């Protein structure tokens, strides 16, 4: 019971962390149909900027400054690069963001070096929040979960309740008409892209000190973020939320499952020889492949339900 409750708590908190990482990408995906490969790079940039601002001023100002700087860079990128590439199609937009991710990695390494930097959790947020079954639950992890939920609520409110959100939604399906009605659709696009990468940077501010802040962080996070967005359904915020929780819980629980195909064979009374016991595939435990389950989920969803769990469109 204790183990189950702890695993559930860990799984949900990890899922919320994943949502925090992918919220911005979902926003950009749903508004502009662009799969931003550099999303994880903005996450990295946000973490490094927060490290710098923390060193100069403090952590709490970094929460504000870092996303703002990222938003500015994102808006500039959208205006001068992405818009230019837009007429060549979605594939070109995707490719230019691939190029951007390489360039951002190099620039970050130039400025801050190639080693991990000592970006620390602020003292006031350290320590446990409560203790469950003898295991302390870190305060900072709860803080991250809080930021994640805040993001969810904020995006949902923005998109469905504000005027600008309605304009964005309309511009998604009828950009010319919205333009004709007098709204500045390109400026809206710029704002959306800037907002999306600002969310990525915010995730970096909050996540960079809990995990390590180093040049490889974009690479290690990038793939899982795409899995979340695609599995959830491209363009669906609710889908991304559900997908991240699903992935978080499944991955966490799978680590505790040490069963393998050998166990299955034994359960149906098939005799297991020594050669079979050492066979790599038969002896492979579920816990060993747990971190890879998201990719399996990605491929399965794309085969059986290409729209994703709650998606409304395919591309």
């Amino acid at each position, binding site marked *: 019971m204790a183990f189950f409750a702890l695993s559930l708590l860990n799984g949900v908190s990890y899922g919320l962390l994943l949502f925090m990482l992918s919220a911005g990408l979902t926003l950009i995906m749903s508004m502009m149909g662009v*799969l931003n490969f550099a999303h994880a790079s903005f996450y990295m940039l946000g973490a490094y900027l927060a490290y710098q601002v923390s060193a100069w001023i403090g952590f709490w100002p970094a929460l504000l400054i870092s996303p703002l700087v990222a938003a500015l860079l994102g808006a500039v990128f959208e205006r001068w*690069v992405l818009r*230019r*590439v837009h007429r*060549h199609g*979605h*594939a*070109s937009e*995707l*490719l*230019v963001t*691939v*190029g*951007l*991710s*390489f*360039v951002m*990695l*190099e*620039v970050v390494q*130039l400025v801050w*070096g190639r080693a991990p930097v000592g970006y620390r959790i602020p003292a006031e947020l350290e320590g446990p929040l409560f203790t469950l079954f003898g295991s302390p639950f870190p305060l900072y992890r709860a803080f991250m979960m809080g930021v994640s939920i805040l993001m969810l609520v904020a995006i949902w409110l923005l998109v469905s309740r504000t005027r600008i959100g309605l304009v964005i939604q309309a511009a998604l399906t009828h950009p010319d008409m919205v333009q004709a009605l007098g709204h500045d659709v390109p400026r809206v696009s710029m704002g959306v892209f800037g907002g999306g990468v600002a969310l990525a940077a915010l995730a970096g501010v909050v996540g960079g000190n809990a995990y390590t802040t180093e040049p490889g962080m974009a690479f290690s996070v990038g*793939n899982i973020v*795409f*899995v979340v967005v*695609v599995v959830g359904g*491209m363009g669906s915020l609710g889908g991304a939320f559900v997908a991240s929780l699903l992935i978080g819980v499944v991955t966490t629980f799978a680590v505790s499952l040490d069963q393998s195909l050998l166990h299955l064979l034994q359960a149906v009374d098939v005799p297991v020889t020594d050669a079979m016991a050492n066979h*790599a*595939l038969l002896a*492979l435990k579920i816990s*060993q492949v747990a*971190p*890879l389950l998201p*990719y*399996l989920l*990605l*491929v399965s969803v*794309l*085969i059986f339900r*290409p729209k994703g769990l709650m998606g409304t469109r*395919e*591309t």
Partner: protein
Amino acid sequence: MPTLHRTHIPARERQAVLWGGFAFVLIVAPLVFQSGLALTALSQMGYMIIICLSYNLLLGQGGMLSFGHAVYTGLGAFCAAHALNHAGAEGVPLPVSLVPLVGGLGGAAVAAVLGWVSTRKAHVPFAMITMGVGELVFAMTPMFPGLFGGEGGVSTNRVVGEPVFGITFGPQIQLYYLIATYCFACTALMFLFTATPLGRMLNAVRDNPERVAFVGCDPQTVRYIAFVIAGFFAGIGGGLFALNFELVQGSAVGGLTSASYLLYTYIGGTLLFFGPIIGAILSVLVGVLLSEFTKAWALYLGLAFMLIVMYAPGGLSAILMANLRVAASGKFSRLVKPGSALLAATPVWLAGVTSLVEMTYHRQIHAPLNPTFRHFGVLLDVSDGADWAGAAALALVGGVLFECARRGFVRHWRMVQEEMHALEPGAEGAS
């Protein structure tokens, strides 16, 4: 009335010249560049051409953007390595020269299995599936050391069996000619494929799958067959890779390898058949050579890629063809002056920018040992503010010159294009 003057070479002769020239270059290249590094670089170009062409079968011909092509080249390489090891150990009569075909069959087999699920959709879902499959395969390789050799990979020896006509494939030059033969044959085969009905159907599926379905062909079947064929050629490339290095490691199926195929094929150009050939040659030049000259090669590559996606989505081959078209129409003389201005301004601007970049990298990496280094023959000192200012000024001035020259060139270019367009018989429209 002025007519469009075109240099008239009959199509068949043109083809013969091109293919003959290709064969000539393949045969003569190692006689010109003879060092060990050059030979291995040429060998790598040989099979990279096959791989990039196979990749473009999917991307350029079929509109399928794959992020996991390395799975097929890599698994083909593993198949070939294992086959070669068995040929050596158990005396299975498999000549070394046919080992790449084993790789090809392996690649095709894997493509047949994985392709069925991958090709149901095109565009972004396809890209995501290939990415997911690629990640899965790559992550699994360390877990099955029997198949993939663990961290050390599967090593093999291409000097096995009795020499045929004195050829053991031990010396690199012999291997090079084997690779060159496969390169020529595979290029020809893939070129012929584009002219077959299936190849044309593939183009149709790329452009308008719905219409193809209405015509009576199933787009998914077409994509699937193309996927398997691409997997076959990818596997051949992988097999040659295995012969060249006599070692295949997990990185052969990894995401970075897949990304490099995408990058260079795109830079070479996906619209024309020979675009990937340019991309393949570039991949070896940049990967093997550029990284030894500068630590900033990844930055340059990323920037160049972005610029090409933004300004030349047809790649370098499209730029080349556009210029050749202008030359064929006899209007090249109009572009000589603006072109020369552009060509003169570019090095100035590049020198300034690269100096700044190199100085930044050098300062970060090497400065404690030695703050000076040579850049295009000029000695630069990162601790000297004057050098920084000079480089910045050069970049600025060069940038201004470049921009002026570029605008002038674009203006003349557009005029020439308009004239060419006006003179053409009505049927020929945009390229």
